[in-house]
């Protein structure tokens, strides 16, 4: 039973910030298809106009255009949803008891393409298209898990799982306890949540704050393709019910991940950027806002330590504690609402355990306690922006 976890890490995990605009190609094309020639004088024979020049919008990131150069680097590059799919596929190959159920996961391939191609490979029963009945198909997954299957429930949007709250809380979380240990419920409940691009209030919910007090479940949030695949595999292999929070805006992140198989620990936090002055704790999409703020902070002379807590329940107080002992200042940046969010619990936990090490009160930046508005500018102001993070660190480090 003692298989070691391999947290094999690529030496420099480069990641791209999500495009601020919708996914446009790196160069602009004119409306008619142009066959590009290798000649430098690119004259379009039809239009007589100059054909397009390749515009490189991001001077910094590795475009990996040259196949030879790409092949020499270890690992392979993929998008976050592909990483999730890879993890899922590997686990389904490994264990025939793993099955997926959710709305449009089968023939449609998943509304975020996480399960694309799996139904053709594994069949309709193993990748099950359910009717729109969250309460009962989550209950069905729990019942199947009681007999030994390992179902993965996909909520098309995390907000829809509120309909299944009773099944998740009572049956998923508590059955192991109320049966005196007779039944284990090795389900994974996953889906995208968080504030997206003007999706409206009901489709922009952050359920981690509602689920966090359910005893018996574990909650993890992935933020990069690397940890998405690792956490997906760990969640499937875990005997406990795990809720895996993905984020709507992070599915198209690209990263190079190792070719070898790896599984991450569900209870560990990730050190994104070691530092000395302040500990910034964050997870999911806010990690990118924090990293953006970190660039500005570094330019201003601060040295923030950024930790992606990843494990929302239980908190990795070991990693967090060591960081607090080093920096003595904590800033929490989260996407949950102010009231009763993950940040609130984390603040309480750190205060209880590490009070003596703190030089300043913990600052927690969360989303506003409002339903997410549709208008773009208003929506931007409901979540924490990098400028606010910079201001908070400056305040904290005074």
């Amino acid at each position, binding site marked *: 039973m003692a298989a070691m976890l391999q947290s094999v890490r690529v030496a420099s995990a480069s990641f791209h910030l999500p495009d601020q605009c919708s996914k446009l190609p790196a160069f602009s094309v004119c409306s008619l298809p142009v066959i590009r020639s290798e000649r430098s004088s690119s004259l379009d024979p039809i239009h007589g106009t100059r054909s397009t020049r390749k515009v490189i919008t991001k001077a910094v990131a590795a475009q990996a255009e040259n196949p030879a150069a790409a092949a020499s680097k270890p690992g392979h590059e993929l998008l976050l949803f592909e990483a999730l799919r890879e993890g899922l596929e590997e686990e389904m190959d490994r264990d025939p008891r793993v099955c997926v159920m959710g709305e449009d996961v089968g023939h449609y391939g998943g509304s975020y393409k996480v399960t694309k191609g799996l139904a053709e490979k594994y069949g309709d029963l193993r990748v099950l298209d359910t009717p729109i009945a969250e309460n009962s198909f*989550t*209950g069905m997954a729990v*019942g199947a898990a009681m007999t030994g299957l390992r179902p993965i429930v996909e909520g098309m949007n995390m907000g829809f799982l509120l309909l299944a709250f009773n099944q998740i809380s009572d049956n998923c979380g508590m059955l192991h306890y109320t049966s005196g*240990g007779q039944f284990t419920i090795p389900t994974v409940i996953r889906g995208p949540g968080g504030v997206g691009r003007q999706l409206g209030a009901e489709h922009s919910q952050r359920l981690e704050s509602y689920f966090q007090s359910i005893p018996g479940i574990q909650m993890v949030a992935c933020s990069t393709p690397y940890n998405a695949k690792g956490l997906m595999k760990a969640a499937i292999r875990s005997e406990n019910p795990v809720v895996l929070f993905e984020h709507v805006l992070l599915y198209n992140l690209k990263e190079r991940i190792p070719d070898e198989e790896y599984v991450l620990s569900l209870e560990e936090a990730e050190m994104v950027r070691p530092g000395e002055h302040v500990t910034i704790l964050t997870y999911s999409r806010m990690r990118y806002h924090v990293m953006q703020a970190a660039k500005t902070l570094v330019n201003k002379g601060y040295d923030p330590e950024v930790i992606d807590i990843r494990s929302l329940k239980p908190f990795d107080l070991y990693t967090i504690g060591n960081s607090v002992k080093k920096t003595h200042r904590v800033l929490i940046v989260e996407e949950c609402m102010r009231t009763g969010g993950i940040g609130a619990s984390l603040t309480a936990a750190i205060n209880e355990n590490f009070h003596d090490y703190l030089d300043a009160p913990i600052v927690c930046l969360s989303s506003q306690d409002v339903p997410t508005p549709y208008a773009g500018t208003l929506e931007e102001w409901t979540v924490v922006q990098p400028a606010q993070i910079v201001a908070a660190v400056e305040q904290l480090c005074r």
Partner: protein
Amino acid sequence: MAQIIHRSTNLLKPVSVAVSATRHLTTASTTPITVETSLPFTGHNIEPPSRSVETTPQELLSFFRDMVLMRRMEIAADSLYKAKLIRGFCHLYDGQEAVAVGMEAAITKKDCIITAYRDHCIFLGRGGTLMDAFAELMGRKDGCSKGKGGSMHFYKKESGFYGGHGIVGAQVPLGIGLAFAQKYCKDENVTFSMYGDGAANQGQLFEALNMAALWDLPAILVCENNHYGMGTAEWRAAKSPSYYKRGDYVPGLKVDGMDAFAVKQACKFAKEHALKNGPIILEMDTYRYHGHSMSDPGSTYRTRDEISGVRQERDPIERIRKLILSHDLATEKELKDTEKEMRKEVDDVIAKAKESPLPDSSELFTNVYVKGFGVEAFGADRKELRAVLP
């Protein structure tokens, strides 16, 4: 005729070796007897099975014995509750024993049963012992759920009993999940998802039924219609009280739930149907003598005459008694002796359970997570940084 003869030995195991005076162990105990059910079956979208049920003297006597044990257990639980040894909620099943006993006679331990909170007798039928039951009711650590579940959370994984659920209707999707797993693993067994007339109005039930019918899952939905959803009579809660018809495209059967042989016949029929054609609904017309739970006197919404009327005319134990006497399988005195024996057995187990220890305080934190994956309490000084995954 493949009778499941060993079925009742689980109940008989803890019985003292006092040789029963009944004649069932002697001659002709497996001679088939044909019994007519009290009422014909009514079918919805299906041809109902015949009223004639094959049985044996041994089965008749074991039915009697099991039902008397169940009745005795529930009455004893009543007095224990009043003596404050059982706390919280206690939902008693007396009056409905025929459903538990008849169902067991038609199936194997590989088939799954899942039910709501009125689960004491079904637990017993599935092979749970009296000690497991009473210890759990009194919150002792020898209980089937280590004292951490209580009256509404009896489970027995080895015999396919999946509980024991407190939230009305939530067990039906779970039952469909059990059937899904049976279909996934292709093991030719069925799942009986039981619920009451109150739960029959839950949306998740219809959601689950839709899915079961869509994928032809071997699920049998059993509505134990005791005509009262806690304090609300069925005609005040449901526009259509024909619960067996509510499946629409799913066939249904209405069964007299106070007749153990009708239940047995219906369950056997349903099992064959489910394995071939997918889900079927069984409505068991039954009755509970006690109120909804121990905090409900049971007389504010129904008359005492109604209760005593049912007890006189439809009591399941009396029906079996009459059958035994009319077929001359035992004398009145022998049956009375059996009842006394069962009473003594229950009293003995209660005395033992009263002495059994309470759970240790450390048990508060066990079984929250499967051991090894964190949280018994993850403190700041957690020494193990890495968890071990299989």
